[in-house]
């Protein structure tokens, strides 16, 4: 009995298989809509609250830039890690990314901020750079001089008795300017982010 080679080949080398083997079917190169990409502008007005910059964990990833139309957050690719915290932190919904805004709406969540300033009194040498650099101090006492000497006590940071003291920590906006200007790394600002659940009537 001769070998049924032709039916055998027809069974193995099917036309469908040959087509798939030689003419590739491209993988889906599209990004799904739920993917959390780089944040994009929604077109709502930015009020320069800077919560996006406070929430951002990556150095240099987001800046709020003044344009002719007003303030505008700008994402720097190559720095942004697409965590979506700026989208959640924004009180006005200026940014959007993936399904973050929708899930915040359905879950009734938002981020709450608090800032904590720690001064290491062993390292602090009372130079007053932090108090002079602090933008909150600058608003309260624009005349603040070298060494952190000021006429008022209603300040966020003040140098007295050779050490920096935090007087009103609730005024802090978490910008970390003091931390960047401290020559001794004595002052540390921690940004505490909490996801809180808000009641429906508050929205």
């Amino acid at each position, binding site marked *: 009995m001769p070998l049924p080679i032709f039916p055998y080949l027809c069974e193995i080398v099917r036309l469908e298989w040959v087509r798939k083997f030689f003419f*590739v*079917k*491209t*993988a*889906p*190169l*599209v*990004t799904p809509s739920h*993917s959390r990409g*780089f944040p994009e502008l929604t077109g709502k007005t930015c009020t320069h609250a800077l919560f996006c910059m406070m929430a951002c*964990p*990556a*150095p*240099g990833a987001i800046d709020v830039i003044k344009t002719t139309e007003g303030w505008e957050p700008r994402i720097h*690719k*190559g*720095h*942004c*890690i*697409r965590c979506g915290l700026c989208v959640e932190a924004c009180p006005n919904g200026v940014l959007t990314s993936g399904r973050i805004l929708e899930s915040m709406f359905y879950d009734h969540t938002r981020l709450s901020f608090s800032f904590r300033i720690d001064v290491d009194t062993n390292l602090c040498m009372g130079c007053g750079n932090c108090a002079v650099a602090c933008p909150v101090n600058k608003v309260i006492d624009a005349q603040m001089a070298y060494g952190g000497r000021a006429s008022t006590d209603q300040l966020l940071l003040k140098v007295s008795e050779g050490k920096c003291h935090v007087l009103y920590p609730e005024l802090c906006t978490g910008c970390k300017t003091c931390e960047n200007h401290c020559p001794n790394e004595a002052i540390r600002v921690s940004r505490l982010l909490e996801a809180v659940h808000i009641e429906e009537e508050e929205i």
Partner: protein
Amino acid sequence: MSLLQSVKNLVRSHSIHVAYVDVGSCNGCDIEVLACLSPRYDIEQYGIYVHNNPREADILLVIGAYTPGWEEKLHTLWEKIPDPKAAIAIGNCPISGCLFNRPHSLVDPPVSKHIPIAAEVPGCPPRPTEILSAVLSLAPLVFKDYEVAKR
């Protein structure tokens, strides 16, 4: 264009050999590069093959924020790759140092200070599709008519 050149173009467009080097990352981007090999993304159907041998590579994928241990080695590795060649920075780390670029850290980004980088794929980590489209869009720019452009 000569016939030889068109044959070379045809062959090179379906045979892109990739080597990847991790110069100090968190392994997130390594996982995404390896995900390109998985059946879902399947880079081999585009004619991209991953070998971890720089001597037979065309494209070097650089991952990581450049730690001091790579100071001599990365440039030697780049020299070993035969022409035509290109390097792609994968992820934020080789571009900016990302989260590791902080005071008192030892990393020395960007990698483009040390070897010439032809393309950058931002993301922490980038999606496999982004890596794949970067390789596919860079390859014709570098390899097509290479001998003509060199002359």
